């Protein structure tokens, strides 16, 4: 069995989860502070990838990043590499597709944050950055973990946009889910099932790790004010 899709999927999911974590968190934080109308508009834009069929999302990405389009041409010129049909092209797809999950969940969590805590931090002279990472984040931990679980598993399961922008080339751009899809499509149910199980195993490990993180500090949070 060729384990390349596993390796490839893991690196794609990891990079994209990290990216989505940062992007989602900051968008959520800054958007929550904006006036209601701007917020509403941004919300729609940022949740958009969720309402489009992933294949269409992939196509739009192709239109944006393809080497014949300005951005892709520039990257090709400067870095000498195409932004499509490489393993890391898939990262664009998974980031766009799973971003709304992190964004929304983080926003929900941030909005239930007890601002007295950040007020207290500010009067104690703690910087906003410190308060963000050491007070707000731990307080919103459950929501943010939920967002990470959703984005990681979504990244792992994403195939529509991925196969559009990165293609399915065994050994180069194949991921677990495009492999699952192709094997399933060509009636190789054994291989398809095998890769489904691999995907499940990865998510299981990830989910259990998250569960441990969650329960470690649950008790502590209750009534802690």
């Amino acid at each position, binding site marked *: 069995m060729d384990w390349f899709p596993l390796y490839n999927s893991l690196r794609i999911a990891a990079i994209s989860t990290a990216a989505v974590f940062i992007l989602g968190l900051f968008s959520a934080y800054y958007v929550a502070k904006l006036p209601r109308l701007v917020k509403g508009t941004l919300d729609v834009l940022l949740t958009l990838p969720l309402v489009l069929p992933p294949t269409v999302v992939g196509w739009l990405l192709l239109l944006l990043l393809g080497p014949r389009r300005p951005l892709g041409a520039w990257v090709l010129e400067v870095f000498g590499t195409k932004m*499509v049909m490489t393993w890391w092209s898939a990262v664009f797809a998974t980031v766009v597709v799973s971003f709304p999950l992190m964004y929304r969940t983080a926003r929900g969590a941030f909005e239930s944050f007890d601002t007295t805590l950040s007020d207290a931090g500010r009067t104690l002279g703690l910087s906003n950055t410190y308060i963000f990472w050491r007070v707000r984040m731990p307080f919103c931990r459950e929501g943010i973990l939920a967002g990470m679980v959703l984005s990681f598993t979504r990244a792992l399961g994403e195939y529509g946009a991925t196969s559009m922008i990165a293609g*399915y080339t065994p050994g180069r751009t194949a991921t677990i889910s495009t492999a699952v899809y192709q094997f399933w499509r060509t009636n*190789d149910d054994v291989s398809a099932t095998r890769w489904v199980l691999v995907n499940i195993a990865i998510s299981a490990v990830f989910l259990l790790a998250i569960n441990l993180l969650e329960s470690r500090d649950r008790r502590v949070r209750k009534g802690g004010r």
Partner: protein
Amino acid sequence: SGGGSAGSSGSAGSLDSSQADPVELTVFAAASMTETIDQIIHLYREEAPNVTILANYDSSGTLLKQIREGADCDLFISASPTQMNALDGSLKDDAEKNPDGLDMINSQTRIDLLENKVTLAVPKGNPKGIGSFDELSELLKSGDVLLAVGNSDVPVGQYTLKLFDYYGLDEAALNGAQVLTYGSNVKEVTTQVAESAVDCGIIYATDAFSEGLEVVDEATQEMCGQVIYPAAVLRGSAHSGEAKAFLDYLRTEPCAQVFESVGFTMMQ
């Protein structure tokens, strides 16, 4: 990729491959060819050990989109002339066949590689008792059937439209009678047939074969024309010689065996 030998572009078709520089070829092939091309890549490894073939499989429409947007591709095998035409510079002035006036394939290398058959497949036991395309057209007219077809992007979909024309059926009217359901890919149509979700489906012989479906009729040439899989080397290919060599190899006897084993017919 294997661009270490920058000056190799001119040295076409050096078949004395054992000493040649290693080369990576990217082949974009219609998804319906996944199994066969995979096998042939295996075979080709003995034929030309210096050539590594990377295949990218998807529906021909997606492949066309990817090529058009500049994806690296040396050889394109489409499941229908439509996608190939859209890239063929020799058809530049034919607004219908090549609407964007693209010139991305090397027209001299274009060949018709394979032929497939349009078939009528039914679920196990054939619950509606449909025996032929003729019977199907009657049922479609009376509105008492649910037929799965590919959309016009799934190559078989275009042949299905021709079939409707042959029987004097109007697609819009059929849609109004709600007897058609369009699949977004072949697997969807075959599964829906296999699971009895629909009464019958129009698919390629190869798809029916791999899914093990019961085929009750096969369209003749006058009903919908020939189903042709064209292939061509891309203009931008850095290894056009090796690509051409592989294309030639596809027409040899060992490959023909592979193709015919799943229901394709070799084109002469």
